[in-house]
């Protein structure tokens, strides 16, 4: 009896298996054939999606009226507009803001902006944020990240829709050099923990500054640096690079493109992560050797920008020192320092 049932059971399984195989073969043959030789004019079949994660294909630009670019214009002496490695140097007159708005607006980007307000520097936040609300990436989604040791001292500034403020508590350090050399580490940690999920591009700036004129999508790029306002007309031998061999920020005499300001840098969030991490590692190595670079993070930033060249450079319009008179070649100051008593603030 048992053998008989076993046989029936096995037979049943075999039957079901065969039926399933037959069904599968049937279905496979019924599905339309997908191969068609390339040379037949059937464009519809070749609609494989080739989009890689994170990569945005170029969107068609809505047509807008704008004057034709003039290829053969004799130009009066102006600023250099292209670095030797073909990165644009952005200044007023090099770009059409309306056209860039048409290109970038549909991409639905979110731009992050970090600033550190530690100790007495919290007093700059109100003016900083108010000016950013007026001029920084107007019309885009923005995430402000204010790092501070005293969250209660951060004022509530009204923000336009689509713009958010995050106050991130950090530890207060003993001296201001320590505070400023920790920024690279803090930014890279913050990107890894949060910002990479929240923003597409990230700018890292000093808080004791204000936006005075539009700062828009002309500044967006893979890795963006800004030319320091005090050194744009100076030969490289006079750049205040770190000149001691023992430091990881050492730059030799014949090296260097521009002297970049530590107060402004940015780019695609993954590039900024890689950049700040690299600077932080170099700072740690110096620390282990008991050395601090001449201009702290700015020295390391400059070292790194020589071997990892920025894909876009901002003219001193985007990083100005209000104590200097505005030269004729700079048409529009967009972001500049507030005159302040630095000795008092750093105590």
């Amino acid at each position, binding site marked *: 009896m048992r053998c008989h049932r076993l046989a029936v059971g096995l037979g049943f399984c075999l039957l079901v298996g065969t039926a399933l195989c037959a069904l599968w073969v049937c279905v496979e043959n019924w599905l339309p054939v997908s191969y068609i030789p390339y040379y037949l004019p059937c464009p519809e079949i070749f609609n494989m999606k080739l989009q*890689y994660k994170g990569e945005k294909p170029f969107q068609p630009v809505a047509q807008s009226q704008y004057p034709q*670019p003039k290829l053969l214009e004799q130009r009066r002496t102006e600023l*250099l507009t292209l670095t030797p490695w*073909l990165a644009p140097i952005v200044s007023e007159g*090099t770009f059409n803001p309306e056209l*860039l708005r048409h290109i970038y607006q549909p991409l639905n980007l979110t731009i992050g902006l970090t600033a550190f307000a530690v100790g007495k520097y919290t007093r700059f936040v109100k003016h900083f944020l108010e000016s950013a609300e007026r001029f920084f990436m107007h019309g885009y989604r923005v995430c402000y990240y204010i790092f501070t040791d005293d969250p209660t001292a951060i004022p509530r500034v009204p923000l336009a829709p689509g713009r958010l403020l995050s106050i991130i508590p950090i530890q207060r350090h003993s001296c201001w050099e320590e505070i400023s050399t920790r920024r690279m580490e803090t930014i890279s940690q913050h990107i890894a923990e*949060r910002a990479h999920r929240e923003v597409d591009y990230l700018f890292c700036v000093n808080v004791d500054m204000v936006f005075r004129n539009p700062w828009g999508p002309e500044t967006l790029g893979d890795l963006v640096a800004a030319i320091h306002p005090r050194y744009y007309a100076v030969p490289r031998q006079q750049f205040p690079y770190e000149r001691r061999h023992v430091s990881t920020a050492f730059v030799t005499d014949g090296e260097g493109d*521009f002297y970049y300001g530590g107060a402004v840098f940015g780019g695609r969030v993954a590039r900024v*992560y890689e950049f700040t991490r690299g600077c932080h590692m170099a700072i740690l190595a110096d620390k282990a050797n008991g050395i601090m670079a001449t201009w702290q993070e700015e020295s390391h930033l400059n070292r790194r920008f020589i071997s990892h060249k920025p894909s876009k450079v901002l003219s001193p319009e985007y990083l100005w020192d209000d104590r200097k008179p505005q030269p004729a070649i700079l048409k529009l100051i967009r972001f500049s320092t507030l005159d302040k008593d630095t000795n008092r603030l750093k105590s």
Partner: protein
Amino acid sequence: MDPRVAFGGSPHSAGFLSPRSPMLGSRRAEAGKAGREPDSLQVVKLSRMLYPQPKVLIPSRKDVLVLTPWLAPIIWEGTFNIDILNEQFRLQNATIGLTVFAIKKYVVFLKLFLETAEKHFMVGHRVNYYVFTDRPADVPHVPLRGGRQMVVLEVPASARWQDVSMRRMEMISSFCEQRFLREVDFLVCADVDMRFRDHVGVEILSPLFGTLHPGFYGASREAFTYERRPQSQAHIPRDQGDFYYMGAFFGGSVSEVYRLTKACHQAMVADWANGIEAVWHDESHLNRYLLDHKPTKVLSPEYMWDEQLLGWPAVLRKLRYVAVPKNHRAIRNR
């Protein structure tokens, strides 16, 4: 490559696999699986180099525009330092594909094209020549340098030369997924009845580039020979247009060239269905596409010239890629 391995397995690695912004390691791993993409996120550390300092107050060229209004570089001699660019692209081990169509009698141009490409095109980098032809037996054997190879792809010929020209878009787009995605990082699509006369290198490489037509670089947009009939997909009204690009030299990353050629082919199919053929065929459609999708680099007429027709004006410091004189009536449709 596991991104956590790339970043030393630190406690911060938890967020790396988020879809919003793939971190460095994960993007490279993806690229390896799905096809090669020029990885703009790849970390390339340049070695110490000595070269003159760029001067903020001294433009590299005062006589020409070197940056478009959408901040794409316009490549002229004097605007770039080739040593820096060569190192950036060598560190990425970039491979460049060069497509060329030698249909029917046009096979006679191949020898000079390939020999001069060996001397001037992307020297020092990995290059794959893709020669599309209906006469594979007539493809000349040209000795190639190390790191360079030639692939002959047999394709059918069309009767009319206009169709030969336009079918190129379709063939390039279909070969993008069949081969190019896996084999090269960048694609350059060139006409065969030309020769290289001077350096054409990595300075041209970017996600999408077009070349200024030598006959129109000084002209105003109303004079551009865009397709002006609204019935055509390539139509551009008289008050629009940045530049007039030449159909004989364009390129970019494989994915962007794929999108461009596919879009142009689909536009031509729509035109055929409506019984219209654009005035300059694939070039008209290319111009429409590049108006809507701005190129990330624009090549000056140094990269597309005809000395016999146009002489050698002072604004061109080099003539890099130039027309080979030919008898149009004898060579077309044969």
